[in-house]
């Protein structure tokens, strides 16, 4: 029985899932090929671009000086912003950021806080006077599902690539003096990696959904794991209910994915260092 993809998309996908595979030829537990490019934006302090299948996300980091927040005078802060422009998909209209972009920004902010990827005290230059603010602008160039995973990978790679200059405060003039010649890398403490899953018909769990699979799924789950096998986020914004075995399954797969992505990032960073 042949189902037409545009006329009956759900039946079309179901007929593949029955055979334990997916329309693009992947297994249920297989991620799309992931490629990473670091340092492509010259004007940013750190940048990275990641492609998971067709989904392309780029992250640029700009470090600026500012006064620390009054409730935490010895800490700097990180401001992530996820942008889903009309360029990446026809479902996004021009105008103010929609709910998906804002929810993604909040999710990334929570992951940064929760995983303690960077110690905010490291960003402080002088208590109550001066600190670094890292503006992380994450923009999706091509939306084919699984944007949250790509955002986390590209953010991690960009942060590892970021170099900020040394700043000293001149005691006499009380002004900051930036030494552009001497730059240092940021101290990255944890390496969180996220994995997204989609649930079909309340029963079948697939990994790394494409945009079409996401729109047909009854539920989407994202789990973020760091290298100590600690969960930094378990995000399931509603949808069909999840049993305990599926939950355990998601987490085991996330841990495997963490190893793969970790190796990929290390490999790319080494090759950029070698080429310099």
């Amino acid at each position, binding site marked *: 029985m042949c189902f037409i993809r545009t006329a009956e998309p759900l039946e079309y996908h179901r007929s593949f899932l029955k055979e334990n595979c997916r329309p693009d030829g992947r297994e249920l537990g297989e991620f799309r090929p992931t490629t990473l490019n670091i340092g492509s934006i010259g004007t940013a302090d750190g940048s990275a671009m990641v492609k998971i299948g067709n989904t392309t996300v780029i992250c640029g980091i700009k470090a600026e000086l500012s006064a620390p927040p009054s409730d935490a005078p010895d800490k700097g802060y990180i401001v992530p912003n996820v942008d889903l422009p009309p360029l990446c998909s026809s479902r996004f209209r021009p105008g103010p950021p929609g709910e998906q972009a804002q*929810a993604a920004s*909040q999710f990334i902010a929570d992951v940064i806080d*929760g995983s303690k990827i960077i110690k905010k005290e490291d960003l402080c230059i002088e208590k109550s006077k001066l600190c670094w603010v890292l503006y992380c602008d994450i923009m999706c160039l091509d939306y084919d599902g699984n944007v949250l995973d790509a955002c986390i990978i590209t953010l991690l790679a960009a942060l590892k690539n970021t170099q900020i200059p040394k700043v000293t405060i001149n005691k006499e003039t009380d002004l900051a003096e930036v030494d552009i010649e001497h730059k240092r890398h940021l101290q990255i403490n944890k390496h969180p990696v996220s994995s997204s899953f989609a649930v079909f018909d309340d029963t079948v769990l697939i990994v790394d959904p494409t945009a079409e699979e996401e729109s047909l799924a009854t539920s989407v789950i994202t789990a973020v794991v760091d290298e100590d*096998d*600690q969960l*930094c986020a378990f995000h399931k*914004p509603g*949808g069909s209910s999840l049993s*305990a075995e599926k939950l*355990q399954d998601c987490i085991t797969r996330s841990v495997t994915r963490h190893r793969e992505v970790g190796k990929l990032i290390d490999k790319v960073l080494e090759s950029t260092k070698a080429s310099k």
Partner: protein
Amino acid sequence: MDQIETGSGSVLREYGSEQNLLSKPDGSATFLQGDTSVLAGVYGPAEVKVNKEIYDRATLEVVVQPKVGMSSVRERAREQCVRETCEAVLLSTLHPRSSLTLILQVVHDDGSLLSCCLNAACMALMDAGLPMGRLFCGVTCAIDSDSQIITDPTAQQERESRALMTFAIDSKERNVLMSSTKGSFSVKELQQCIALSQKASEKIFQFYRDSVKRRYSKIL
């Protein structure tokens, strides 16, 4: 402050709820968890704008209004969680091409805000008579620095915790419908929190039943 003991160590604050208190919305409810209080209003099924209508289901919009200030990215993330949970339980195919609007106003925030919003939303949807396949409730767990799990934490306990999780549990199979977490924790801790939330949800569903009984007591 009265607290509900649920036996296995999870303790919930004193709960309060009232339905049908606003005259204009089709359904309204207020939910109190200790000092945290949220007021919910539902309009629907009503007319929908042509660019927002879906041909085979109802369009659900959720607005979370904070107590002070304009709504920000944080409220949008909460709206997404509440909306997707409600969409999973509502039988929206019974009202195609119509709109359902759910407005949540935060009256006071003393911790466990997202779970209070979920509980108020469920009671308001029931009050409006919208068709629902099952009920849901929200439970928040916090893990403090000694790795103790606290259910239904206050704002003070939330600030001092190292991880905070909110789950929406459904009434039929007690499975997790929605999960939103902050901070880092181990898999075992996650499973323990889910088990505690499922036990606490029994008490909350019984509380729903008692509240609705009270509401219908005048005509019984």
